[in-house]
């Protein structure tokens, strides 16, 4: 991405940062257990790992920001300073002058009660790099550098007046102000939508090239790493298990964990019949397995006696190292992906949605008069057949979750029809709706918040049965135990509380609860978005198995286009309360015709560094507008690269047009040039 480092060029000799045998523990939890790495000027080192791998703690240790309860040993040397033993003043100086940090969630990273301008420059002012009088001009210049329009007016605004993407760009401006030698970016785009992620990554890359800073990019997202990093370090259970150039890591992963991660990843560019998850759960820092921490989940080392001792990280090639007794050779890499055909729709539709509208009133402050509408869902048509999976995709705020909730009757529809199994269920009385709802169940995104913490797992799964008075009729505890087995848990776990389960197991409980009433349709609202990659694959496979076994229909609401491609038969793309394109999965991914779908797909980072420069990328302007004040005409026109005057004036009709594989709402549909 920068001229000095494209393609992982050989790094110059003196590293900016040298980490040796760094270990961090909190009480009995050994979160980082002896890691070594160097970062060289101008390079991007990607540190990849799942939650609990110790990657964020490593970032905090490097910047000396760990709190007093952390026990740190080993050495972190930055520009002649030993960070683990440096006095607070030197650390403060280092952070203010030489090291910039970008954190995950720009909404909480910025202080809500201070102006953006002040926050962007206060570090420089505090370290006398600029004078207080020059701060405003400097803030304006910095915001301009990260493409924030009208920076002079923006510096006086507060974070809540910025959109998510603008906030993260402001954080980048802040972190990269001055002449930083090292930027530590901890999941910098995880909280952002994919089109905004593309904008932010582009700004980050450009500013990096301009400043020549080295970057440590910490992420769980292999696509982002493949797109941005020069070198990669893979972390597992507090250790680095593999390092290498980005090409080597993705093409010939040596550690079974690295190759397992790559295999478990659904891909945007191909379709596998079945994902290959890594068995089991990532370990907890205070209860690590003996020997190699990965061996209980490892397909190679599980039974071998060698794996009872922890392997050291050793060099296997120039610039590549691996911590494994049995590093894989090139032959043992990724299996060929077998393209699987999406199934076509058949039979009578189970769920039919016609012109669904969900509008929320905006009320004036004093008299609570209605002064407008938020058109969260504004005319959605959708059909789901028995046994079929329909994906509803779109960025945050597009109305996909609201659509799902309105179908369930959790939100009142303002207009349109919802038919279930041929019966119109809009406006049914409550008791009738209860009967229908037995056949439609909902799985929530956040398995941590959607289970009542003081009920046992068994009670949680049984609750729908008790509500409908069917508990004994369905077979009581024996039936519940059977549901536990069906979702890959053991009936012996029924007495446990939610906090005793891992994230993936909690989502299994959520699925078991949804299955309890033997529904015909599941509305899955981002069911894997909160899970780690290796766990995500387990849940995706479970959902596919259950569908085959029980003939379930799924409405799969998601923002992750790769997961959607893997699991769905048909896909509908939503933008600002409307469906803009709908087609069979294969047609939609092969030849998207709506400009929005095209830009969405092109913005998804692919876990393949070879495609980094080969792919044409459409970076959209701006961000999704507020549904309270949608643009005129086609609501996508202000961000569209094909828009003409007609698009601003006239809303396109959603229909299937001759010669196009998709139904689409666009005046100028067609394959991307």
């Amino acid at each position, binding site marked *: 991405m920068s001229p000095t480092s494209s393609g992982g060029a050989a790094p110059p000799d003196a590293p900016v940062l040298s980490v040796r045998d760094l270990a961090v523990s909190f009480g009995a939890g050994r979160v980082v257990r002896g890691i070594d790495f160097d970062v060289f000027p101008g390079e991007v080192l990607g540190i990849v790992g799942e939650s609990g791998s110790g990657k964020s703690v490593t970032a905090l240790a490097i910047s000396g920001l760990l709190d007093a309860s952390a026990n740190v040993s080993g050495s972190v040397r930055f520009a002649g300073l030993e960070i683990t033993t440096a006095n607070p003043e030197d650390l403060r100086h280092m952070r203010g002058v030489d090291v910039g940090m970008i954190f995950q969630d720009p909404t909480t*990273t910025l202080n809500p009660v201070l102006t953006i301008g002040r926050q962007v420059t206060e570090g420089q002012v505090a370290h006398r790099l600029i004078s207080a009088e020059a701060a405003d001009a400097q803030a304006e210049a910095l915001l301009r550098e990260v493409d924030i329009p009208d920076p002079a007016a923006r510096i006086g605004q507060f974070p809540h007046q910025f959109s998510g993407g603008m906030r993260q760009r402001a954080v980048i401006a802040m972190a990269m102000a001055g002449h930083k030698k090292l930027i530590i970016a901890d999941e910098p785009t995880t909280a952002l939508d994919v089109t905004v992620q593309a904008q932010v990554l582009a700004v980050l890359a450009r500013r990096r090239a301009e400043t020549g800073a080295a970057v440590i990019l910490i992420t769980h997202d292999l696509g982002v790493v493949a797109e941005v990093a020069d070198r990669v370090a893979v972390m597992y259970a507090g250790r680095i298990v593999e390092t290498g150039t980005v090409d080597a890591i993705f093409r010939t992963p040596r550690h079974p964990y690295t190759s397992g991660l790559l295999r478990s990843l659904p891909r945007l560019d191909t379709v596998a019949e079945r994902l290959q998850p890594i068995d089991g759960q990532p370990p907890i820092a205070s209860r690590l397995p003996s020997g190699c921490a990965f061996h209980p989940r490892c397909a190679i080392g599980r039974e071998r006696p060698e794996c009872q001792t922890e392997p050291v990280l050793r060099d296997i090639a120039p610039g590549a190292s691996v911590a494994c007794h049995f590093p894989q050779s090139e032959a043992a890499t990724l299996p060929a992906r077998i393209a699987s055909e999406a199934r076509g729709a058949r039979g009578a539709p189970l769920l039919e949605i016609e012109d669904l509208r969900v509008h929320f009133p905006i009320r004036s402050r004093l008299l609570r008069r209605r002064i407008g509408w938020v058109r969260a869902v504004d005319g959605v048509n959708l059909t789901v057949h028995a046994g079929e999976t329909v994906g509803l995709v779109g960025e945050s705020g597009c109305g996909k979750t609201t659509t799902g909730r309105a179908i369930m009757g959790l939100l009142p529809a303002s207009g349109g029809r919802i038919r279930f199994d041929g019966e119109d269920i809009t406006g049914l009385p409550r008791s009738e709706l209860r009967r229908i709802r037995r056949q439609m169940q909902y799985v929530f995104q956040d398995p941590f918040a959607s289970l009542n913490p003081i009920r046992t797992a068994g009670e949680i799964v049984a609750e729908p049965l008790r509500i409908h008075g069917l508990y004994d009729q369905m077979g009581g505890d024996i039936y519940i135990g059977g549901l536990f087995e069906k979702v890959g848990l053991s009936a012996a776990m029924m007495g446990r509380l939610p906090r005793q389960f891992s994230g993936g197991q909690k989502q299994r409980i959520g699925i078991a609860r949804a299955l309890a009433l033997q529904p015909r349709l599941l509305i899955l609202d981002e069911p894997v978005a909160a899970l780690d990659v290796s766990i995500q694959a387990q849940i995706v496979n479970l959902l596919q198995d259950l569908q085959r076994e029980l003939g379930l229909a799924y409405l799969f609401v998601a923002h992750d286009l790769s997961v959607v491609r893997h699991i769905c038969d048909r896909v509908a793309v939503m933008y600002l309360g409307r469906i803009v394109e709908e087609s069979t999965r294969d047609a939609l991914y092969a030849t998207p015709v709506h400009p929005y779908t095209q830009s969405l797909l092109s913005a998804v980072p692919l876990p393949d560094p070879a495609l980094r420069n080969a792919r044409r990328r459409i970076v959209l302007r701006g961000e999704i507008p507020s549904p309270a004040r949608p643009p005129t005409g086609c609501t996508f026109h202000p961000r569209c690269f094909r828009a003409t005057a007609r698009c601003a004036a006239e809303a396109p009709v959603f229909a299937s047009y001759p010669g196009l594989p998709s139904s689409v709402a666009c005046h100028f549909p067609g394959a991307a040039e």
Partner: protein
Amino acid sequence: MTGYVLRRLLQLLPVLLLASLGVWAMVFAVPGSPVGALVGENATPEQIRETVARLGLDRPVLEQYWFWLLSALHGDLGLSIQSREPVAMLIAERIPATIQLGLSSTIVGLVFGIPVAIISALSPRGWLDRALSGWSALALGVPTFWLGILLILLFAVTLNWLPSVSAFVPVWLDPWGAVVNTLLPALTLGIYVSGIFARFLRAALLGELKADYVRTARSKGLRERDVIGRHVMRNALLPFVTVVGLMTASFIGGTVVTEAVFTYPGIGRLLIQAIDARDYPLIQGCIMFILVIYVLMNVMVDVLYAYIDPRIDYG
């Protein structure tokens, strides 16, 4: 901003109307007839008939309320039974004294409470935090009348530095005299409330210190005192001003015990005297005044909120 304040004041009208109905209806909750309460136990039947007619108590209930409300709106809260003086005047006389003591107590509470909270929050669960938490618990736990007596014993009796009886000396006429006379009751109330302030602010600070923006501020290499002073404090103030507002309202609304201990001429003592004498018009007046103070203080807190937190839109 002005529009916001006006609108908030406008929204008070229904609240105050409802409150006035409650205060007015209080007379009916008195054992025996309200007239008995109004004219006293030893009134002759003549006097009772005369009062009933004068107050319009023979007319329909709603009309009576309307009549009372109209007079109240004109500043006429009736005559005190005891002193035969207008209730409104009796209360008005006490207002400056009450406000002076109330505000001084709050200031003392802040002077003690804020540093205690900051020091505690900087080393949570350290020995200093524990010691200061003990101080807060003590400040809250010691009854104010006892603390007041102890302070009198120490400063007035033993050291003879301050008067044991606190007269009201307006601060704008004699600042030094005001300090001398207000210090002991203000200390009594201030020490007590500093325990509350310290606990609330400590909890708010600890909550804010865990926030991501604090890590961001530190990552910019700010000094810890700037991290606290510029970033954390303002966010922690949001829940804190509510408590400060409520406590200040309660002080201005009268602090019965402390005023009694120091024989300070505030609303609290007026109310107690009125209750002792079953002086219903005066009780009604005092309670109405206290209600208005609470409601106004709530508006002030909301306005402060909007000032502190830019996310609150007062447009």
